[in-house]
């Protein structure tokens, strides 16, 4: 009984007293907002970079854009995301008054784009060359062949890898606290600093991440199965 009473007291202290649950809820909303927006930025950026890279691989054209893409990939994949976030906030936007959420979206979007790009490029290169030739032989130009024939097939193949990247992205936004953005992790940490109780807020934060990831995985698995069923 004493244990439960103790637990209930700590729960009250960490989440109910002084409306501390708001740190968790507001943090969660910020985390979702940043993740969703960064995902969109990452996918758009990733597809553009992937198509430039794949075009270069297949035709030898686009030498300069391909070079720029490779620099982007090397730099982003070769440095920690926290450092990128700090540089974008304190160096690039250092003298500009800009919302932290926007900075986080830019930083995580650019970071995710690099990983998406290599996933998509792999997907495009995995499509049989004959598909490309069939498209061109009908009179489709290069871009039309990509849009109507190659990318839809590649997307189906890389869907599981993209879902995985989405989950990684969601968890990576937990470092946003470095620029003092109040995401889910930071919210839990603020509670910890107020109540001097580490267990309750941090485990709660962990469980919320876990629940989100499990929910996403469940949804992705269903989507994937649906896609496979339509792939005759």
């Amino acid at each position, binding site marked *: 009984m004493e244990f439960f009473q103790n637990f209930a007291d700590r729960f009250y202290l960490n989440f109910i007293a002084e409306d501390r649950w708001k740190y968790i809820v507001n943090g969660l909303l910020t985390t979702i907002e940043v993740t969703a927006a960064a995902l969109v930025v990452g996918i758009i950026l990733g597809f553009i970079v992937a198509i430039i890279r794949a075009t270069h691989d297949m035709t030898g054209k686009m030498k300069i854009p391909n070079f720029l893409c490779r620099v982007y990939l090397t730099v982003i994949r070769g440095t920690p995301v926290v450092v990128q976030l700090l540089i974008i906030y304190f160096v690039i936007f250092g003298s500009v008054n800009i919302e932290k959420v926007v900075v986080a979206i830019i930083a995580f979007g650019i970071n995710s784009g690099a990983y998406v790009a290599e996933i998509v490029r792999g997907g495009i290169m995995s499509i049989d060359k*004959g598909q490309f*030739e069939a498209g*061109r032989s*009908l*009179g489709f130009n290069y871009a039309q062949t990509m849009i109507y*024939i190659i990318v*839809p*097939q590649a997307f189906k193949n890389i869907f599981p890898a993209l879902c995985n990247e989405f989950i990684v992205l969601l968890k990576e936004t937990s470092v946003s606290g470095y620029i003092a953005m109040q995401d889910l992790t930071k919210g839990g940490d603020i509670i910890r600093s107020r109540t001097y109780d580490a267990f309750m807020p941090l485990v709660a934060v962990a469980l919320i991440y876990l629940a989100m990831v499990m929910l996403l995985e469940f949804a992705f698995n269903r989507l994937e199965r649906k896609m496979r069923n339509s792939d*005759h």
Partner: protein
Amino acid sequence: MITDNGVLIKVEGLEKEFSGMEKRALNGVSTEIRQGEVVFVIGPSGSGKSTFLRCLNLLEVPTGGNIYFEGIDITDKGNDINSYRQKMGMVFQQFNLFPHLSIMRNLTIAPMKLQGKSKEEAEATAMELLKRVGLEDRADSYPNQLSGGQKQRIAIVRALCMKPDVMLFDEPTSALDPEMVGEVLNVMRELAEENMTMVVVTHEMAFAKEVASRVIFMDSGTIVEEGTPDELFNNPKSERLKSFLSKVL
């Protein structure tokens, strides 16, 4: 536009070099394809016959020579090859149907996107052609649900849906199980009887003998001999053709 003497495709001194390869795949090939002609290209593997065919619609870009299609030099970079490819149907050894699209969509995507046909118009044309090859009941299927022979008949229909002026066949029966070769050859035979201009690369010698209006024998990237099926199969002049025929007939 067809030139006065009915020449649809004119090939002059065609050369193709693949980087890293010592020998040229094509070494000065010149010939003409006239309207309504059914030209078969035969020869040993590595003779350049597939490369020759794939150069005709610039799937392979030649490294020398010129190709005139309906009087226009399509090797000239200033000409938009995509618009000419719409008039040159191509059938591949591996079918290359689009696996993510239904059969009907495979057949209508190019006419709709490239020729501005309405869905109804494109589907009506597709259905009519599907009936002719006996596959009207497979319109809603997906390519992977079909047999090899069915896939290849669909691939022929896909090319025909663009109403091409010439059909190019790149070993259309080589990837098929023997019992499925006949159904594909029947479709090709019908096309030939309807005076479709065709260029066919094949190993089906009996079929070439029966359907061809002209046969081209290639070896080492050049045309060694060309003429009627009777001339080539019954009275071969060159030693190379004689030795080739003794192996394949």
